[in-house]
């Protein structure tokens, strides 16, 4: 009963070589004779996917993974080199910024032409004109040529037209990135309402929040091949993890890193239990060992950070003119004690950061987790010293 709105099987796209006119001419003869050309660069392959009504799909992937090319094939702007694309129901696409707008014409003329291209009849356009203009909300600029529009205005107009068409399948490419805050919210509200009413969306976005909020499935493309297809949360998590691994690998591969200080060890000495739990007005003592390949003492920063990332307090060995002590194996050691920790209950990190001897570059980070636990009804991050005052006179009142 729920036939797919879109089905791609074995889709491949190869861009033919077009740089030299002889290549173009050869391709021309090949297409005339056999209906296809040979050679070229493959940018997409082995794409199989299905989009059913109500099951929105997001395409995610790094830049150049082939997302936009795939969208072009789906909308029919581009012909696939192999495989099949089946479409059912109406389809409307908002591909790139200002796509389909003629800069010389006014917004209104472009609106009419675009709506006609999307299959609206002249009467429908007139009926919905007021709605479209209200949604786009660009005022009198509608009678200005589109070349005078800001990029945000172009997107507003484009989206307003799509919204009026309300197709079975809505295809968007990174459009929410351009509009201002209020228009983005308006778009998201419209999309949510559209999805609630049984609409289906196929979107490309780098905003994983939007992806997870609006889509049910995701396809992760990597260098033109599908890497993962399935539930949006699973795919997005795998994708983000891949990005983190890539970042970490890049940091590790930085060529200067062997010559820079790195944190070898970070240990919470007081309290001694593991995991470390500090009570009301308890102490926290930490020791770190830092290797410094060039034999000079590194600059060390200590900080306390709440589990959600809020920085609480930080100190620097350089500011306090503290020199790390050399250890037997040629590394450097620093210890610090935070007395009578005035933190409110919660989970925290103590973070050490090793800097180069000049104190200019942060080279390495380490975190050690600890918790603060004691009963209290007070609110906030740290306990401040305070006393209640009587009658607002600035003098201590009766206890």
């Amino acid at each position, binding site marked *: 009963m729920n036939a797919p709105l879109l089905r791609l099987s074995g889709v491949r796209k190869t*861009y*033919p070589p*077009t740089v030299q*006119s002889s290549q*173009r*001419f050869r*391709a*021309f003869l090949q*297409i*005339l004779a056999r*209906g296809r*050309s040979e050679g070229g660069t493959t940018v997409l392959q082995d794409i199989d996917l299905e989009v059913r009504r109500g099951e929105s799909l997001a395409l995610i992937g790094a830049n150049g993974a082939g997302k936009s090319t795939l969208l*072009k094939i789906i*909308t*029919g*702007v*581009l*012909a696939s080199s192999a495989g099949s694309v089946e479409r059912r129901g109406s389809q409307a*696409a908002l*591909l*790139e910024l200002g*796509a*389909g707008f*003629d800069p*010389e014409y006014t917004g209104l*003329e472009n609106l*009419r*032409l*675009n709506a*006609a*291209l999307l299959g609206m*009849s*002249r009467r429908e356009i007139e009926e919905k004109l007021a709605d479209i203009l209200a949604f786009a909300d660009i005022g009198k600029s509608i009678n200005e040529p589109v070349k005078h529009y800001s990029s945000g205005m172009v997107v507003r107009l484009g989206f307003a037209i799509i919204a009026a068409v309300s197709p079975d399948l809505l295809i968007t490419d990174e459009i929410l990135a351009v509009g201002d805050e209020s228009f983005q919210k308006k778009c998201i509200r419209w999309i949510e309402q559209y999805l609630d009413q049984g609409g289906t969306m196929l979107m490309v976005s780098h905003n994983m929040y939007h992806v997870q909020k609006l889509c049910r499935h995701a396809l992760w493309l990597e260098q033109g091949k599908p890497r993962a297809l399935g539930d949006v949360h699973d795919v997005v998590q795998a994708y983000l993890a891949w990005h983190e691994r890539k970042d970490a690998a890049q940091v590790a591969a930085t060529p200067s890193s062997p010559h820079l200080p790195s944190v070898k060890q970070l240990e919470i000495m007081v309290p001694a239990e593991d995991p470390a739990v500090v009570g009301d007005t308890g102490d926290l003592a930490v020791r770190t060992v830092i290797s410094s390949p060039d034999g000079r003492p590194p600059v060390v920063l200590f900080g306390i950070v709440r589990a959600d990332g809020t920085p609480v307090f930080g100190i620097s060995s350089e500011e306090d003119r503290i020199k790390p002590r050399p250890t037997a194996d040629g590394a450097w050691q620093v210890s610090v004690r935070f007395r009578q920790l005035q933190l409110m209950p919660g989970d925290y990190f103590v973070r050490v950061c090793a800097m180069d001897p000049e104190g200019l570059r942060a080279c390495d980070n380490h975190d050690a987790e600890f918790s603060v636990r004691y009963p209290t009804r007070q609110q906030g991050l740290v306990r401040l010293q305070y006393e209640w005052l009587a009658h607002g006179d600035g003098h201590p009142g009766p206890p």
Partner: protein
Amino acid sequence: MLFFQLTGRQIRRSLSSGATTWIWVVATPLLLLAVYAFVFGVIFQARVPAGLEVPFVAWLAVALWPWLAFSDGVLRGAGSIRSNAALISKVAVPRAMLATSTQTAAFLLQLIGYAVVLLVLMIAGIPLHLYALPYLLLLLAALFVFSFGLALFFSAVQVFVRDLEQLLPTLFLFWFFLTPILYAPDMLPGESGRWLLLNPMTWWMEEIRAALFEGKWLPDRVFLVLIAIAGAAAWIGYLVFDRLSPHFEDFL
């Protein structure tokens, strides 16, 4: 529906916008007619073929505007895919419609000029056979189909063979002089006039003149040949366009 909208857009673009444009629709052909009257009537003292009692300018104008409609239609249509590259690479437009609406708009604009010119000729007292008008319209319709086919063909080929953009106007200028528009076929020396019959446009021009000046109103075998030529051009143009158009985006 979409076709008419695109065609209307093209026509409006050619006229740009503003109150004075419709004056130019009438004035441009008349100015052009005045230039031809001066150059060929006064400077060259050109004469019409024997047996016709019309001024040379009238004889020229009757054939010149159909040629302009034909060649303008093909040339503008041929450039339409390349000039709409931005639209084609972003929106799933029916591509053939871009070429044919451009061609139609250019053809219709020249026909408006033709109507103005014919009207002025009649007001000036040139004896035109009005009862042949239906046949003239049939001839123009066939010419439109011929222009339509060539526009489709060249617009598709031009995407792949870009040199065509520079070459086509020159080719059409050559074709213009190989077509008896400024002269009659029997003015050529010896038997060479017969070679002109290989050029389909010769037939169109001869028929159009025969209709307006000699009152030929009944379509005969010649018209069937013209329909066949136009139909063949449209069919081949469509086949080539259909074959090439899915690959446009790769080559634009």
